[in-house]
């Protein structure tokens, strides 16, 4: 990634915290997530019901609205993709 807008670290921290809290994963485990860490389809905890919880919790914590048509396989594919999506919504 190039130069990141201010607030990027907070957004990334929020995404980690949401995954930790909604999926019941330990802090150590979410801290180990890197940009290419696969999420939907790879994490057993992240089923379709959990996806709804993750999206809603992200909305509440970042003050964003996520529309139905913005939710696709790509933005949930990896931790990096989800974080980039969240950053674009929160800071863009």
């Amino acid at each position, binding site marked *: 990634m190039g130069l990141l807008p201010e607030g990027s670290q907070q957004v990334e921290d929020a995404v980690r915290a949401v995954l930790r809290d909604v999926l019941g994963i330990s802090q150590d485990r979410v801290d180990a997530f890197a940009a290419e860490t696969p999420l939907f389809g790879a994490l057993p905890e992240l089923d*379709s019901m959990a996806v709804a919880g993750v999206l809603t919790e992200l909305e509440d914590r970042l003050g964003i609205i996520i529309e139905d048509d913005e939710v696709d396989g790509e933005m949930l594919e990896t931790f990096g993709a989800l974080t980039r999506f969240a950053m674009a919504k929160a800071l863009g």
Partner: protein
Amino acid sequence: MRFGPAEAPVVMIALPPFEEANRLRALAVTVARRLGEQGLGAAIPDLPGTGESMIDIAATRPADWQQAFAAASASIGENRLIASLRAGALFDGDDGAIGHWRLTPQDGAKLLRELIRTRIAGLREDGREASTATLTEAAMRDGIELSGHWLTPALFGDLEQAVPPPVHPLRTVRLGGDIQPADHLIEAAPLWRRAEPSNDLHLAQILADDIADWVKTCRAG
């Protein structure tokens, strides 16, 4: 379900409707026990149509919950404080209470949005497309099943408009990371987001302590 010493002020705990009630019941019971240890009474009323029965909830509307909760409250006596969790705030209005306390209050539109979002995710998993618009249209026309509960058009429509009633004095508590207005933030994970019902003894203690302090403040004020 009622806990605590017979003569003490009673905290009426309002659980949210639908699935979150199951997810938060153990926490609510633990909070009630901790309140008992601090010399306070606690009660967790059962609301119509929030059990397992699909038939019950088809005939239920938020006004019914409000009435049922108010009736349960009135039967407790004057010395009561209302503590609601999440969308339990939608029917926690009670003019006779000494005060109100809310954990992460949620309005009806947001509640429906979450239920619909879960439904859309499930449909997509089955390879079927759906949108908030199409599901809302269907709900208002025919009713809709969301997370195992049948919502009539009337119930759906009521919930879309429902907001927590204005109450005073009110203390609003939220969890860290939540950016909406609050009187106090607690660092804890949102139990209502977990698929499986669970408990958090530490959080229950913190909540009970906070409620007990608020009871003291309301009684003094």
